[in-house]
């Protein structure tokens, strides 16, 4: 058993599962957005902002946004533990990634709800 405190959920299985669940959410979201853009070639600003004003779309978008955070955290944590061997540099990189993801999530909430 290898102890880790900087991984997403401490458990390897939990991280592995969340990586896959978040990937699925992102895939569905991407397909939806691409499909919507293809089906609406003459998209107007009103139509686009109307889409994001519905509660279901906001929930879906927030879910996708959280998935980006989780997915990138697990992925970049994995990359950092593979390639960055100096503890200080690795912890700095992981903290930076965590901060950027947190900023994106808060900023995204602000954009979605038009706060």
């Amino acid at each position, binding site marked *: 058993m290898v102890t*880790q405190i900087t991984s997403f959920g401490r458990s*390897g299985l939990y991280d592995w599962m969340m990586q896959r669940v978040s990937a699925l959410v992102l895939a569905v979201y991407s397909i939806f957005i691409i499909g919507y853009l293809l089906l609406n070639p003459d998209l107007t600003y009103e139509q686009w902002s109307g889409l994001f004003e519905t509660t279901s779309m906001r929930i879906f978008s927030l879910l996708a946004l959280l998935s980006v955070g989780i997915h990138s955290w697990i992925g970049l944590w994995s990359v950092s533990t593979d390639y960055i061997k100096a503890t200080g540099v690795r912890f700095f990189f992981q903290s930076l990634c965590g901060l950027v993801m947190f900023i994106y999530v808060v900023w995204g909430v602000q954009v979605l709800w038009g706060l």
Partner: protein
Amino acid sequence: MLVSIYRYNPEKDDAPYMQDFEIELPAGKDLMVLDVLNLLKAQDPSISYRRSCREGVCGSDGMNMSGKNGLACITPVSAAAKNNKLVLRPLPGLPVVRDLVVDMGQFYKQYEKIKPFLINDTPAPAIERLQSPEEREKLDGLYECILCACCSTACPSFWWNPDKFIGPSGLLQAYRFLADSRDTATQDRLSDLDDPFSVFRCHGIMNCVNVCPKGLNPTKAIGNIRTMLIQRAT
């Protein structure tokens, strides 16, 4: 044929280097790489490598032949040489003791971690613990591993984290004991593996399957361990 061999004697050399040998191979015969090494050793007795059974059973002569790990004793020169040139290097990722001899300490440490022996806390029967043919069949493709380290040293995850990631060989063995009907420590074994490194550093690139000289499938065994962990936790 041109044979290029990785040479390093830490007592004499500052850094490793490749040494080229020109060798005349007997016509009409496809020698094994180990035979070529034996011929070269007659020329230059300082060339070091491990070998024992010379028939792919002991797992001593695992090495990197023209970029692919394998056992020198069962790899024909025709399969290993490219453009009439044979390049021999030690197994990648492990510390080199001398020439083609590597220090397998890290590899064995990971093997030791998975407790490679049957654990059974029930009273021992008078003669032996019985298994049905079906239960025994589950161990096929697992017990044959000879610990040559070709797979683990072909795995980038093992290169980057040899102290934390068990590696394909160790995980194949871990599943061999998880799948054994006579073993009662399944839950403890699974708990020991449920961290972000031991099993989950495997990204399924299947380098291990590609090089295994015994034709085993560690990636499949790792998938089975994952399934067991999921079934236990959901």
